[in-house]
Every structure is written in C-alpha cells, then in structure tokens.
C-alpha cells in the first residue's frame, strides 16, 4: 500500500513543477490583470508596428481644407487643426512613445542595475559613493533635467530620451541595491562563498537571478513613467519636435481648441492612459507570476 503511494508522490513531485518556469504560461492565462495588461501593451506595440507599414493617411501631410473634420468613413476619428488624420497620428505617435520608453528604460536599466549590483557587492565607500550620487541625480525631476539638457543641446527627441533615461538610473540603482543586499544576506550566498565563489560570480549566478523578477516588474512600471514623462516633455515643447507626431504633442496642439473640439485632447489622452494602464497591469501580473513562492500556491 505504502510503496505505490510513495512512488506516485515521487513522480508527481518531479513531473509538473520540475522547473518553476514550466506552467508559467498556463498560470499567466488564468491571471486576469496580467492578461488585460498584456493585451493593452500588445495593442500599443501592434499600433506602432502597423504604422511602419501602413497608416490610413499620411501622418505628415497637411490638408488645411479638411481641418477639424468630425469622425467619418474617410477619417475614422476625424482630423486635427492642420487636417491630419487622427488615427494616423495616433499610430505613428505610438512609435515615438515606445521608442522613448525602450531607450530610456534601457539606459536606466543598464546603468542602474550595474551600479546597484556593484554597490551591493562591494559595500563600504563604493556603495556610499554610488548611493550619494544617485541621491543627487534623483533630486532633479526629469522635467527639470530635460529643460537643462534642452538649454544645452536644444530640444528634441534625443534630449528628452537622455533626460528621462538619466532620471531613471537612480530608481534602478536603489531597487537593485536594496534587493541585492537582501540576497547577499541570505545563507545560500554564504554557502556559495564557502564553496569558493568570488563576488563577481555570486553576483551573476546568485544575486541577479534572484532579483530579476523585481527588476522586470520595476522596468514595466518605469516604462509607463517614461511614457508619461515623454508626453509631459512633448506637451511642454521639449520632447519630440514637429512634424514628428507624438501623443504629448497632440495634447499640446489640442489644448488651444479644448472648447471647440474637445475630442482632440481625449484621443491622445486615452492612448497614453491605455499604454500606462497596460504596462502597470502587466508589471503587477509579472510580479505575481514570477514569484516562486506564489507559483507553488496557485
């Protein structure tokens, strides 16, 4: 009686959860907010990709004769004050949004995680120096550093991306260093050191994999913040420059016509809201799905 029981329990323990990653997609499909976030994010990504090959009208051609048209069969969401097709503007605008997000988060991730890992591994004055420097950077809001950069380098997409990216570094430094310190204090790191590993190998093999899920979640949230920052900078005229469409610029253009055609502000506003909401839900869902402790309970 007991022999087959234990045998069955043994194989059951190996088969389904042999890797924590297996079953990830199965669990993901059951996680509602993750699904919604993924759908919204993919929708924005899809729009950006679509704009590369097709838009209903050109997003750059000005046709003042047909300005401020209401939605119609030809212009699904109408036209703006220069007669440009709103759908086309939104599609192309998604491109700048995603580009800014990817590059800015990329800058923040690569520098921030690197510095955070070094701070946690080296401790002492190295850690102090890195943390004080990131505090210093953190003290300047993204908009302020963008204005300063714009004063030096001139406004534009590169300036805004750089400013947002630099602004993201300290957040990643703090998150990385905090969670890496927690891993360094764990006994398996002591065990790894007792097995003769140096701090570089421990960082790569033990610390990084254990904080990766935290970083992925943080990256999606930072991506959303970068989109908002880009919209804010474009709205102020410091970000993407005309004629390159961007959601923030569309908001800026719409503001003077807020009483005449309020929908012009609603469309880009909704697009920003969808992108930010989607990424936040995606991040929340990933946090749940990547946590090995939660994975076992589901």
């Amino acid at each position, binding site marked *: 009686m007991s022999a087959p029981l234990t045998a069955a329990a*043994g194989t059951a*323990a*190996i088969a389904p*959860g*042999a*890797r*924590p990653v297996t079953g990830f997609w199965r669990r993901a499909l059951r996680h509602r907010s993750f699904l919604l976030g993924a759908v919204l994010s993919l929708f924005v990504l899809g729009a950006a990709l679509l704009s590369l090959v097709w838009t209903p009208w050109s997003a750059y051609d000005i046709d003042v004769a047909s300005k401020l048209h209401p939605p119609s069969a030809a212009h699904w969401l109408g036209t703006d004050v220069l007669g440009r097709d709103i759908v086309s503007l939104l599609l192309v605008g998604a491109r700048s949004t995603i580009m800014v997000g990817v590059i800015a988060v990329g800058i923040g991730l690569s520098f921030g995680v690197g510095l955070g890992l070094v701070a946690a591994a080296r*401790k*002492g004055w190295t850690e102090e120096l890195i943390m004080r420097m990131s505090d210093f950077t953190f003290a300047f809001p993204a908009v302020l550093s963008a204005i300063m950069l714009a004063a030096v380098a001139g406004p534009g997409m590169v300036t805004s991306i750089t400013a947002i990216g630099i602004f993201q570094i300290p957040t990643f430094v703090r998150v990385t260093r905090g969670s890496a310190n927690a891993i360094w204090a*764990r*006994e*398996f790191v*002591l*065990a*790894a*050191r*007792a*097995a*003769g*590993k*140096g701090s570089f190998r421990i960082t790569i*093999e*033990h610390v990084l*994999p*254990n904080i990766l899920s935290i970083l992925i979640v943080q990256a999606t949230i930072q991506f959303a913040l970068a989109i908002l920052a880009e919209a804010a900078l474009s709205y102020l005229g410091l970000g993407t420059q005309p004629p390159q469409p961007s959601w923030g610029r569309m908001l800026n253009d719409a503001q003077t016509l807020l009483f005449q055609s309020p929908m012009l502000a609603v469309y880009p506003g909704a697009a920003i809201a969808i992108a930010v909401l989607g990424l936040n839900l995606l991040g929340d869902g990933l946090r749940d799905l990547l946590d*090995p402790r939660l994975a*076992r309970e589901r």
Partner: protein
Amino acid sequence: MANADAPLIEVKDLGVRLNTSRGPAQAVRGVSFTLRRGETLGLVGESGCGKSVTALALMGLLPDSAVISGSIRLEGAELVGLPDAAYCKLRGNRISMIFQEPMTALNPMHTIGRQVAEPLLRHTSVSAAEARQEAIALLDRVGLPDASKRIDAYPHQFSGGQRQRITIAMALACQPDVLIADEPTTALDVTIQGQILDLIADLVAERGMAMILISHDLGVIAENVARMMVMYGGTVVESGETQAVFTRMGHPYTQGLFRARPRLGARKGTRLTTIAGTVPELADLPAGCTFADRCAIVEARCRAALPPVVDVGGSHGVRCIRTDVSMADGGVVA
C-alpha cells in the same frame, strides 16, 4: 597524506575583533587547537559565545572590517591574511562548511544538481557531464532517494532533512580535508537529527576528514566528537577529551550548562535549572573572567585578569582559578 600524524589544521591564539554598531567587540580571544585527519572537535556554548565567528574565521568569511589576530595554519600554510582570491581556491575545496538552515542554504533558483556540481566545476577540471555523474553519486551517497531522477529538481521540492543531505553533498563534493558543521541539525526535528549526524560521522570516518562540529546541544556534542571545547564570551573556558570533560567538569559555566539540560523522568512541574544573569555584551567584556558576573564562586581576583588555563590532567584544560572549589567533589555534576 604523507604524514598522518602531522597536524592538518593548527589554530594558535586566534582572536577576532568585530566592528559593531556599538563599537569594537572582541568576539573571539585566545582560541587554540590542532586537528589531525580523522579527528573530531566539538564547539559548544550558548548563542553569541563566539562559536560561529570562530568557524567563519577558519573559512575566511568574516566581514572585511573584522580584525583577525593569531594564526590559522592548514598543513603548515598560514591562512590569516591570505588574499581573498587565494582563499577562494581553498573554500569548498579543502575546507568546507555545512550550515544551520538547509531551508535557506540552497539557492531557490538553481537545480540541486547544479548546486552540488558547482564546487567540482569550480575547483577541479572535470567536464560538465562528469560533474553531473559525480553529483548523482554524491547525492546517492548522502542518502537522497532517487538521486538520478531528482537531480534536476529545485530545492523547494525537498523536505528539510533531504535539503540538509543536499548541502552535505555540496560540502563534500571536492573531498575537503576539513569539514565545519555549524549547528547542522538545529533546524531539523530530532529523528532526522540522529540520521544526519550519523551520516556526517560515517562520511568523516570514510574520507578521513577532520571535523569541527558546532552545537549548543550537549547531547549532540557528547555523542559525536572525540574532543570538545566549551566557549563563553569569546574564550574557551574548558577543553579536553569529550569523555573526560563530561565525567569531570571543571568550569562553573560548563557545570551550569550541564545542570540546565532538560531531563527525562524529572518530576512533573520541575523547573529547568538556569544560569543566573545574561551573556555579557561582546562590546563591553569584563576585564577578568568573562563568566565572573554569573559565577557562584566568584572572588575578587577572578575580576582582575583573564584566568589562565589550568591543566586538570590528561590535556583537560579549565580556564578557572578556582578549580580547587569547583572540582572539590571531583567535578561530577548531578
């Protein structure tokens, strides 16, 4: 292996000063011992007495701010002041350590096979496939059922006792000369405790390692090591053959520790005996005997200077100047 009688590890007057938030603390003072192959040494004492700090000093794993004095020699080679890169080559290779908490001593993100094979890949020139075979053999040897099938499983899929077997396999992978077991069974229940200690004892005998077993459990020490050292406030207060120490306890602290053990068959409602007072702060140690404030037979001269070690016969040393009183009845503790 050339000379089996030569000391494998030789510790002389080891001292460790830690920089704590309350200022410098002399965590370990004047610890000396030698171990040959196949010998076993127990370190016993309550929390904060310096047992684990001594172990970490041997492993070279103390924080950079710690100041180590004295000498630790492994087959004649000095380890104190060895650069970290050189120490990395010894750790897990010639000196290994088993930790207290098998639940946390394994990385939850890696398979157990990878973690057991790791020291082999690190310290020897075997191929990945050979390391995997060796890992299976090791896991088999430490009694993990179905080792070849479960090698790709993750730590959370094992019980506490099984995980401790896995950490033992990790520690033994490179056939170390010295094994340090820091309270290896504290986190396990009593039935598993016996099995794990037996396994460690078998492996020590089989591979001719020297073992340092750290525990706060007198029973574990009594049954598993040939020699023992009782630590208190960072100093060794009593040392000798386990048999000799248990038959004739010389130091008032050892006697107190022994009286404080729970006993089977005691009358219901009997209170456990305790040692009055608390452990001294390591940052604020008294000038004389560290145990003076809690000792029943303390005198003024006990507080003057740290008492020397008195040999009470058969290499049984007691760091007490009042052994004439404490051992008046032969050091037998009821």
